[in-house]
């Protein structure tokens, strides 16, 4: 087991320089989610224009895997419809199961595929995506 398999450069870049970190004043959908087993937490905000995610931002606390995953997710989801966002979350679940899936929206996401070999860390990677799912579901989609 090599640490480099998990902590790819692109992951650490998102951890160090998180995209879309912050809050929005605008009328946004807010989803708060905790990982009760480890204490990670995320607050995700989605600004919708009709069916389309116009802006996504997050705040939270967690490890490099959970925070980089949130950074990537918020980056990838911008400009997508709620259906597309939900489908992306499903694809992310497949990635965590070790299935070969692609993310044309943001190739960086594929760098998280190594998490699959670290079962204890899958929950870290999926936290932000579960928040996204809840956000979409709350819109009745």
């Amino acid at each position, binding site marked *: 087991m090599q640490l480099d398999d998990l*902590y790819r450069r692109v992951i650490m870049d998102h951890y160090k320089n998180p995209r879309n970190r912050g809050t929005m004043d605008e009328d946004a959908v807010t989803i708060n989610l905790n990982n009760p087993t*480890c204490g990670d937490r995320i607050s995700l905000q989605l600004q919708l224009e009709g069916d389309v995610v116009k802006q996504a931002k997050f705040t939270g606390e967690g490890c490099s*895997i959970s925070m980089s995953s949130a950074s990537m997710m918020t980056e990838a989801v911008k400009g997508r419809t709620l259906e597309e966002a939900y489908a992306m979350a499903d694809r992310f679940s497949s990635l965590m199961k070790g299935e070969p899936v692609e993310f044309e929206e943001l190739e960086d996401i594929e760098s998280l595929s190594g998490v699959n070999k670290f079962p204890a860390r899958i929950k870290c990677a999926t936290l932000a995506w579960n928040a996204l799912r809840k956000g979409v579901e709350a819109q009745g989609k």
Partner: protein
Amino acid sequence: MNIEEIRKQFPILHQEVNGHPLVYLDSAATSQKPRSVIEAVKRYYEYDNSNVHRGVHTLGSRATDAYEGARARVAEFIGSPSPEQIIFTRGTTSALNLVASGYAPSVLEEGDEIVITPMEHHSNLIPWQQAAKRSGAVLKYIPLQPDGSISLEDVEKTITDRTKIVSVMYVSNVLGVINPIKEITEIAHRSGAVMVVDGAQSTPHMKIDVQALDCDFYALSGHKMCGPTGIGALYGRKSLLENMEPIEFGGEMIDFVDLQDSTWKDIPWRFEAGTPIIAGAIGLAAAIDFLEEIGLDNIDRHEKELAAYAYGKLSEIDGITIYGPREGRVGLITFNLDDVHPHDVATALDSEGIAVRAGHHCCQPLMRWLDVSATARASFYLYNTEQDVDALAASLLRTKEFFGHAIG
């Protein structure tokens, strides 16, 4: 105390994890099991397995004798005046829940107080939150000193004439601090309150005498003291147990059952509804035999030496924060490395075969008090050595370098 000989008795320790010899530093979560405990459970299932307290046949008698013998062994181990004052439970959590749901309602009235501390494990916190909500009692906290210890002055201030129950952990699973239970008990008794002790982290590591402590309830877990998972015990003062209500009903706990009403067996059996944890109790008794053969005082001394060594060694690492007081602690060190999240620390250590815990350790209020979202924790037991500490320190330096490079 010959650690090499002790290590030989733990089959699990002799393996490689991720290509490195296993260094198990997570005994505060659960301890490993010596061969004698594994064999005792196996022997029971292979030769004596039967239900207890009902069989007329030979196996039934053997199982009953072994189960009740285990109760007597636990009683003797913690200084209980009689085996009847030991109730077998699933562990500390269910023991504390039994007190909070079976005993507390009979004494709590609206406006009464339950006193605990912010360092409590969720298992000694949420049952009291619930008991307070149900009765209208107030849940009060003894404040902590800056280093995480408890001052008796604060105990005096917090406990009042309205306090009915005081419940405190003997040893903190995060701070490693040993709390002054005997003194707190004295103060609680002076106000007429009942003293409950969460002994999950103390029982494995030091000699316990519930009569010397003078506490009213004492809860322990088998799996943290070389015993199997799924077995623990609650000690209680006889007069209190006799007035405590069962919270589970069914087989094994009844005296006479009628269509509309039933009566209970004597203590402790009225609190053990259903087929009890027979194999677990037998395994726990074997664990007690094992610990006593080595000697609790020897174990205590070994761990304190190891804790002091680890504290010194780890505090040399640049950018480490160690939580809890330096003195008066058991063999566990909770820490954080600057700029590296504890989960990442734990994964990095695991990649070198070193098992530590990362997270909130079931102590969310304490994490908030420490102003962190999570911490890493290395915890030691009788089978750990200074080499284990050296391996941890060396691996932490490499972890720092790896993440310093990756992030920097």
